[in-house]
């Protein structure tokens, strides 16, 4: 009597379930980083193939992200601001690459961009070979990660109150100037966060890349290659490096969110 009430059984069960899931998610990654990160970082000095995979991954993911941002912003703005026939269908189509298995995405891309396709032949004539080149990696990354950017950017635009734009129009700006001077800066943080997520997703892609371009190897393909060729011991340092790379955007996102929370409440 008079002591603290014991937590309800339901609370204990919920806490236990949550802890188990957290452990399941974190433990393998923790184990991987614990066992492989020091070796992985050390190998960056001696393992030329790992260094080159790392550079290729960073470069292709950045290119894919830039392409995704350039082409995704107009699409996201359109979806956020305009009501038109077929908008729901367009949204559903954009989600499709997120729900299909990524090797299937690779096969689909191969069908459209491979040398047996009209597009692939056209690109070859223009001197652009997709399959088996970094261009293929960029295409695979773009396919699987651009929908994430469009979805995030759409939300970022939707969060900008249209009345800011309305006021700017009355102050003499045409539609493009309003977009440049008001919409883009106000949606900027959300757009940046979406681009970071897209980049992270592109870096971690494996399934579609491995179908389009096995060589040259990205870090994800290299870790798989080391695993199948040399076994777990050789794959661990490479995989750990990939985890460390993925942590960079995570930290960046945290910083962005922290800044946004600091500003929250001050916005109209």
């Amino acid at each position, binding site marked *: 009597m008079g002591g603290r009430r014991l937590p309800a059984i339901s609370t204990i069960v919920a806490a236990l379930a949550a802890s188990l899931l957290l452990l399941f998610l974190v433990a393998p990654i923790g184990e991987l980083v614990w066992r492989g990160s020091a070796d992985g970082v050390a190998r960056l000095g001696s393992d030329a193939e790992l260094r080159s995979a790392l550079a290729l991954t960073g470069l292709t993911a950045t290119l894919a992200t830039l392409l995704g941002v350039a082409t995704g912003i107009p699409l996201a703005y359109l979806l956020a601001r305009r009501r038109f026939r077929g908008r729901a269908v367009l949204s559903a189509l954009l989600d499709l690459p997120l729900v299909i298995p990524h090797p299937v995405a690779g096969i689909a891309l191969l069908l459209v961009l491979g040398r047996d396709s009209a597009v692939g032949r056209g690109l070859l004539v223009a001197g652009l070979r997709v399959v088996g080149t970094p261009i293929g990696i960029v295409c695979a990354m773009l396919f699987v990660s651009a929908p994430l950017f469009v979805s995030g950017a759409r939300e970022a635009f939707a969060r900008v109150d249209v009345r800011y734009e309305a006021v700017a129009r009355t*102050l003499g700006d045409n539609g493009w100037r309003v977009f440049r001077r008001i919409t883009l800066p106000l949606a900027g943080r959300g757009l940046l966060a979406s681009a970071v997520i897209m980049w992270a997703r592109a870096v971690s892609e494996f399934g579609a890349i491995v179908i389009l371009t096995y060589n040259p190897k990205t870090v994800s393909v290299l870790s798989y290659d080391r695993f199948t060729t040399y076994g777990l011991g050789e794959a661990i340092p490479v995989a750990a490096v990939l985890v460390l790379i993925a942590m960079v955007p995570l930290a960046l996102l945290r910083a962005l969110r922290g800044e946004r929370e600091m500003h929250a409440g001050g916005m109209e």
Partner: protein
Amino acid sequence: MIVARDLGARLGSFQLQGVTFKVPSGSYGVVIGPAGSGKTTLLETVAGIVPASGGALQLDGRDARALPPEARRVGLVYQHGYLFPHLSVQENVAYGAADPAAVDEVVRRFELAALRHRDVVSLSGGERQLVAIARALAMRPSILLLDEPFSALDPGRRMRTRREVRAIHREWKLTALQVTHDFTEAGLLGDVAILLDKGRVLQSGPPEEVFRRPASPYIAEFLGAENVLAGTARVLEDLAPDWIDAPPSEFRDGHHAIEFTSGGLTIYTVGLPPAGATSYAVIRAEEVVVSRTPQASSARNLFRGTVREVAILGAYARVTLETGGGPLVAALTARSVHELGLAEGVEAYATFKAMAVHLC
């Protein structure tokens, strides 16, 4: 000049329909109406933010429907300011201004110098409204649209800002259209009052006319008329009775002396005979004079009653008098209530002139 003729606009499920009004060049229009009546949508339609779906809209003689918002030379101030949060106060005010001198002038006139370099997210609601007004004026518009622009200002600042906006309106020869919930403000500022409800204009004209001669009992009650009595009107034969308390010139063609009966009250008035069998008499509380003894005056309508309620509202008071035929509400100063010794149960007299009664 703003001229709307049968103007329509659609915003989601809400519609402006058949909106017709005119704010002459250099005049100050006020839009009043209950919440959700379409006041903000009307301003946005005039500004070109909400596209008109029908009718005609002229701004300074130009067909505004053919012009995008940026070509209409319209300054728009929302109630919540909508200051651009990524810009400073100075950058906000200067956003649409072509002339830096205009920026300096509005900053000075609205006392914003100390805020110039502040981040707008740190401003109070009232400060935001001031910056929003300054921003709209700094671009030197020819038409100014204001959506409850003074609502977050403290009473002193509100009075000064209202005065300044009115002064700039006169000096710069602007045409203004302001949404307000404040009837005093509507009366103080407006040359033209537009009463809006459910997306339609119920009545428009000089504020004095709209307040004194509401077109319907609904309008009368919305505008705060305390005595709206349903009853029947009977035209009296004498066209210019000796009890008429207005100059003969005001006894216009078609007007008659009318006897209006509502419950046990018989009221005399002058006006056009109402069209329907049931009509309404509207008497504003400030037209009703209360006294402890019958007043020797020319006022035709005199009723004896008992004070049922005295509501003191700061310097003013509302006194409800129960007459034999129904209650009458009078507006007095709190000092008068005290001097007359008015309290619940006290016997008193209510008097009002025939011309104070409006039939609709």
